[in-house]
């Protein structure tokens, strides 16, 4: 318990550094997640609508998933240098596959007879997308985002390796200096962040699936 107490004392002494690291960690995670949503939700819809596109696009993103997070971080180094930008790119790549796959599955899973009755009643393609397909695919899209969020929050720790900042800085320094309390200053908030994002998305998912439980 001493280690924890020491970690807490460190946070109190270095409030500025701690908050700054937390801010960077959260913002880099959120940015990566948002970028992945912006890229992958439309791509997922496209794949669901144009079957011939799904194999190449899904294949590309799934092969990216095989590469370990750290390897992606290091691989973008020569291209983008160090700092926030390369870390963001690497984390975005990481967040993409679950969102892409789940968006695709969500749209493919909409009952074709629901779509037939919608268009049979005179709903145009845009209206069907907004009023029918999106709400019905939403539970799956959200669970993809949830998976991606946890992954990104955890992997953002590695951003510190390429100078991206964040809570990972404490972990790297703590490991380097054999200072376990410093390590915990990074590790405990990361774990809490991951749990927190899990809970937040669980709540959002519940509201989106209200109709399934009524």
């Amino acid at each position, binding site marked *: 318990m001493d280690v924890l107490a020491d970690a807490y004392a460190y946070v109190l002494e270095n409030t500025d550094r701690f908050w700054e690291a937390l801010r960077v960690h959260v913002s880099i995670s959120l940015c990566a997640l948002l970028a992945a949503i912006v890229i992958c939700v439309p791509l997922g819809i496209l794949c669901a609508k144009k079957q011939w596109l799904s194999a190449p696009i899904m294949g590309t993103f799934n092969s990216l998933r095989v590469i370990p997070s750290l390897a992606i971080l290091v691989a973008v180094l020569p291209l983008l240098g160090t700092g926030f930008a390369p870390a963001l790119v690497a984390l975005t790549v990481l967040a993409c596959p679950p969102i892409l796959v789940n968006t695709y599955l969500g749209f493919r899973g909409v009952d074709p007879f629901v779509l037939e*009755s919608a268009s049979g009643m*005179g709903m145009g393609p845009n209206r069907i997308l907004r009023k029918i397909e999106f709400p019905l695919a939403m539970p799956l899209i959200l669970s993809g985002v949830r998976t991606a969020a946890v992954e990104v929050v955890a992997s953002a720790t590695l951003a510190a390796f390429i100078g991206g900042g964040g809570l990972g800085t404490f972990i790297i320094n703590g490991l380097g200096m054999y200072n376990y309390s410093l390590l915990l200053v990074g590790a405990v908030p990361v774990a809490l962040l991951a749990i927190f994002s899990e809970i937040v998305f669980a709540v959002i998912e519940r509201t989106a699936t209200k109709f399934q439980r009524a």
Partner: protein
Amino acid sequence: MTTDNAIVFDRVTKTFPAASKPSVNETSLTIDKGMFVTILGTSGSGKTTLLKMVNRIIEPTSGTISVFGKDVRALPLTELRQSIGYVIQQVGLFPHMTIEQNIATVPNILGWDREKTNGRIKYLMDLVHLPADFRQRYPRQLSGGQQQRVGIARAMAGDPEVLLMDEPFGAIDAITRTRLQDDFLDIQRQLGKTVLFVTHDVDEALKLGNRIVVMNEGSIQQFDTPLGMVSNPANEFVRQLIGSDNLFLRLQLIRAEEKMTALTEPARAEEAHICTDDNLREALQLLLRQDARRVIVDNAQGTAVGQLTLDLIKMDRQG
């Protein structure tokens, strides 16, 4: 072309890509306003294709279809479909919307104000015999029969003149189906909508339609009234399909009122009674069961207005 013609098919052909034979072949058909037309055929006869070309779910290869004198291709697709009710066997209710939101689909597209939409929902739910407290429920909380009632209400929300129905009661158990048929028949008589109703069930086709189209291999075999279809089948296929040899079927299609004669002596309460709207088959059954000489025919108010005897029923065989 007068507007009395609700739907006109003019030499309509549909050949699906990679199919060797057309699903619907050079078909012409004129349906008057207010007719309840059942399209009867086996699977693969082209009956569903014929139906779905009206609201352009399927586009014909050649020929034209017009609704109230207007070529269906003249209107934007969405506008055309908003003006035609559409009901399918699988119902296809929107699972994430409540019953009232489902019914409000077309009013919402048309941009009705809330009060008008609300009134319409109330009226329709009453029309299809759904309790008002179903408004806030979701489709999966309803039984199959109730869901199709919502499906019918939803299709009628924009007050379309024409209703297209693709085996709407096909997936519903027999008892519920009979009730739905009776209720929908009432609705159609009440509102006088023009209905095109696809079914593979002969009894359903005869019971609901005041005209029947029999289709086989992409062509219309006969377009006639139920009685005409049973009495004078156009060919062997129709005779086999309808079961025209079945005398009971014919008796079932003739109402007591059409054959009854004046009472020869005052009706007594203990005699067998039927209604003017009941059919000859029911009359015959009563005659046989009670070994009676006659059956008394009562009108809707319960007053005896005529009688039926075995001789009168027999006469129908020649006439």
